[in-house]
């Protein structure tokens, strides 16, 4: 069982998922669809970065994935606040 190949295949699947979600982000009838797609792509980016760490065989760089989980939340809340209230403060 070659774990490297498995990780690589999983990475490709994640990228395929990102491309499907990207379609919804570009097309999305409402703004909310776009924000949802952004949030989902952020989560998938967390996955992809973690997988890349294991693909390259150096999993010590997961700080980036952790940072994504945080920043994704902040960005989503910011965009939602903008859509809902038309101001940021």
């Amino acid at each position: 069982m070659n774990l490297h190949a498995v990780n690589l295949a999983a990475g490709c699947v994640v990228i395929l998922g990102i491309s499907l979600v990207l379609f919804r982000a570009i097309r999305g009838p409402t703004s909310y669809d776009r924000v949802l797609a952004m949030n989902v792509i952020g989560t998938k980016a967390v996955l992809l970065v973690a997988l890349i760490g294991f693909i390259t065989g150096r999993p010590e760089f997961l700080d980036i994935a952790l940072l994504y989980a945080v920043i994704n939340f902040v960005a989503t809340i910011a965009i939602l606040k903008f859509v809902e209230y038309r101001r940021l403060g």
Partner: protein
Amino acid sequence: MTDYVLLDVLLLALLTITAVAAVAMRNLFASTVILSIYSFLMACVWSNMDSQDVALTEAAVGAGVSTILLLGTILLVGSREKPERAVHWPALLAVTAVGAALLYGTADMPRFGDPQSPANSSRVSKGYILQDVPKVADAAGHHTGPRSEGNYFHDHVPNMVTAVIVSYRAYDTMFETVVIFIAGLGLILFLRRRTS
């Protein structure tokens, strides 16, 4: 070797689609969201190229703070782009020429991760990669020239990017900080509303 090339090709194809979509959209809010997605994908590309510091910066700045900045800009200028249908031919020509020149220039770029490339084989980067950069100052503050016992520093910090930024190019980083500080001053001077 081929594994990250595969991921790179897939991610860069997605990036191209995202970039074109962000430019083509008339709704600036949608453009902002797409740019945020672009930043997420870009950070994946950096991470795949093993440049972790850049990936971290892209994630922290590109997706977080610059989204706030773009949203604030939309608040100030409105969220519809001015319709401009006509093609500006001289501009198109200039852009095509510059793009062709850039593509031509990439032919001479070193291969990805090439150990013989100038960036990897220069004396300074070799020193930092091998972690024995000569610390050029002795107690009196003189240059002590080439390798001599005692002036070598065998255990500088493990992250050589930080070592280069804060030690080798500390002067440069200081003025980068000053630039950011001046940007903050500009924000305060231009945008702060005076409240009684």
